[in-house]
């Protein structure tokens, strides 16, 4: 499942994760930490949509 930051367009692909940001591939979006921030623009999880 892919999630997009509504603010800046950065994409989070659950299959790929975000290893450069310490997120292992396969990590589900709902399992990302509460304080997870978009690595591009800093938006919080609430600004993401699937």
């Amino acid at each position, binding site marked *: 499942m892919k999630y997009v930051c509504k603010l*800046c367009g950065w994409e989070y692909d659950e299959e790929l994760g975000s290893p450069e940001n310490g997120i292992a591939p396969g990590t589900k979006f709902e399992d990302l930490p509460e304080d997870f921030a978009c690595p*591009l623009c800093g*938006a919080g999880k609430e600004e993401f949509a699937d």
Partner: protein
Amino acid sequence: MNITSDIKYVGVNDHEIDLFEGQYDVPNGMAYNSYVIADEKIAVMDTVDARFGHEWLDNISAATNGKAPDYLIVQHMEPDHSANIATFLKAYPKATVVSSQKAFAMMMNFFGEEYEDRRIVVGEGSTLSLGKHTLTFVTAPMVHWPEVIVTYDAADKVLFSADGFGKFGALDADEDWACEARRYYFGIVGKYGAQVQALLKKAAALEIEKICPLHGPILTENLGYYLGLYNTWSSYGVESEGIMIAYTSVYGHTKAAVELLAEKFKSKGCPKVVVCDLAREDMAEAVEDAFRYGKLVLATTTYNADIFPFMRTFIEHLTERGYQNRTIALMENGSWAPLAAKVMRSMFENSKNITFVEPVMRLTSAMNDLTKSAIEEVSDELCKEYLARQDSTANKNDLKALFNIGYGLYVVTSNDGKKDNGLIVNTVTQVTNTPNRIAVTINKQNYSHHVIKQTGKMNINCLSVDAPFSVFEDFGFKSGRNVDKFEGWEKYRSDNGLVFLPKYINSFMSLTVEQYVDLGTHGMFICSVGEARVISDLETMTYTYYQKNVKPKPQTEGKKGFVCKVCGYVYEGDTLPDDIVCPLCKHGAADFEPIK
């Protein structure tokens, strides 16, 4: 105009524009700023709006004495700054475009060109040397577009801030900076507070003497003032003391109630009251004021089983921009089925830290006595601190002030020679530190007072936030004269032989009494400190925390009678016996209050 010896202004003023960004009324026009940095290489910062390309190119030519610029730095792709990229590159065929990866992708979308053979792609921390001036690029994603970069020139200590620190109004407009800068900020950038905060953090590491934005004047002095405002705005803090009333009124009845409310605020000492007719006044100015002040009153009529359209638009502007950290009072009108307040309240359901003041002020077509009494209540609540500060209206005998003295909570243990005892007090304070002395005050009615006066020793155990109510039941509601309070507790002993608790404390200290002060109802023991241990990192439980989170709410629902304020015990009956002793905590009639 020269900004520094090498940096020149080549922007333009626009007095023709009717609506900036397609929505903002700009009675004093707009400025589109652009700058030339003339060094061994010449760089031009951004372009200008489509209608001013020729004037801008003339300005550049004059600024460089006809020399061709080497670089066009594109910080932001919004068309009021990017429209003349192609025009520039046609006029200067040897120039290179410098911008972010995302910006080039946008150039493809806007112009069908991304200049692969004449460009430099920059990112966070990239640099470009012009000779004496080395430019460093800093990304500013979502301030207010994703491709935005800002540029720092270390030689002249100039920050080219893109749209940040801009304002409405052409450069020949003689007006206050903050007002139009605030309307601009909340309108255009307001949603991106977090992203602005991130940029301010990066800027704090730079030595900045001048700020060159893409709109509004160049800022050269007192930069702390501008940075301070941007910090307040982007953290959704309250900038000014006062109350804003935003209203819609179709036939004048809601307006009359609003005017009465405004009068009440002023008479109760509110330093600033702003009243805004959302239908007739500038909507962006209304939005600006809602963010400027900490208290907002929304007054509107029920309309089509919803709310009046200008109020809906206004609230949507606020929530879209992340409105938070504020207090809101509601006024509604309805000639048959009023529900405006319910609708307005629900529009803020995803907004953080919004406090609604009760009651809702309701008009049924026109103001009535209920409306007026609600107006009185709401104005008292919103003006609480103003009334308290004003000499003529302050309650100077409000002993509730004493409840605001902060305390921790402590289990004080002692031993009468035969058995261990303990009680809970909040009255423990360190009074000196050379040497360390601690004062502990105990009610003479407590058995521990007698024991400590005799033995001169005690341990004070600092309760931490994990202590459950049972600790208070064990040590607070029983008497050590009759009962072994430590039944069921594992006992640890300190060097002085007294107990310290096995859990629920973050530290304890062993005290030796040096002085006793007789205070009539209480005795104060002033002590030196012996053994002192830190047990955990948990926070000390404050008295406030206990009242809010630990003390159970009394089960008074549906019951008639009296409730013990200390422990919540309910006495059901029409009258409270004068000699009543609370079976749970032993307090007397004075600590009971009627159940409402």
